[in-house]
């Protein structure tokens, strides 16, 4: 890790990591509304979006990877790290350039793209694990749910970000 990261920055990022873990834990306590694997709100993505919008991409990436690893360690079942890594990293790889092109505005568009590619990454992993092409029948369902959930988390990030930044930065 960067030796020049200030104590203040390190503390702030640690706070965001704890926050995203708490959000993740709360979300996993909500019973799934639709009984399909992979359909969920992805509320923890709110934190990634806020960091992308108000901090740097490196900060967002650090918090995201810390959250992925810690959540698998704390709440994970076997294989869940593989799914969340594939989904999280692919969605970050899309959200980062999208956020730059959008000049850090309109986080719900970035979020919708992130949600879509998060689900695509997870479906790809599921395909690699089960080696059954038939699971691509889920593709339209996962695409729609990813975009809608991403729009929602993006709006959450838009409104929550303004309040949090004025107190944290």
């Amino acid at each position, binding site marked *: 890790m960067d030796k020049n990261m200030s104590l203040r920055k390190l503390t702030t990022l640690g706070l965001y990591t704890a926050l995203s873990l708490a959000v993740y834990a709360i979300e996993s306590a909500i019973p799934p509304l639709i009984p399909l694997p992979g359909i969920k709100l992805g509320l923890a993505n709110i934190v990634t979006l806020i960091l992308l919008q108000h901090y740097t991409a490196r900060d967002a990436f650090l918090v995201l990877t810390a959250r992925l690893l810690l959540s698998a360690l704390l709440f994970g079942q076997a294989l869940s790290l593989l799914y969340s890594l594939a989904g999280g990293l692919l969605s970050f790889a899309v959200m980062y350039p999208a956020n730059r092109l959008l000049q850090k505005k309109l986080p719900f568009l970035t979020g919708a793209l992130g949600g879509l590619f998060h689900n695509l990454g997870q479906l790809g992993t599921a395909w690699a694990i089960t080696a059954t092409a038939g*699971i691509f029948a889920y593709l339209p*369902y996962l695409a729609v749910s990813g975009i809608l959930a991403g729009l929602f988390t993006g709006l959450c990030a838009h409104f929550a970000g303004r309040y949090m930044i004025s107190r944290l930065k």
Partner: protein
Amino acid sequence: MQQRSYKIAVVFIITLLCLVLGLSMAAILRPASRGTDYIADIYQDGSLLASFPLDGSGDTRRFIVTGENGCFNEIEIRPRTIGIVSASCPDKLCVHQGFIGAPGLPVVCLPNRLVIQLREAEPGAVDAVAY
């Protein structure tokens, strides 16, 4: 110039999202073909474990598929539908997916790497080309 690339990005992303949404909704709402018999294929780890015709003949019966680490799924075959009735996985999503009677969404248990998929009984059916 900055402003221009921003506008292009907004239009491009919105178009992409609408396109994906539209295609997905079209695929979801595509009417299922009726009046044909189906065959249920049960896959574990990607290899075909068993096939059962769902042509309305035969009684309702159950059997258990076991996997690594002692995990299991209990599958029930009815005359025209098939589903998972109990499982060792933590979230029981496969059980909640219920019984299927047509191709389209397979029943999947990701923790136990089990997939139940239906296909049309007649050889040479062209349904799969639609994807």
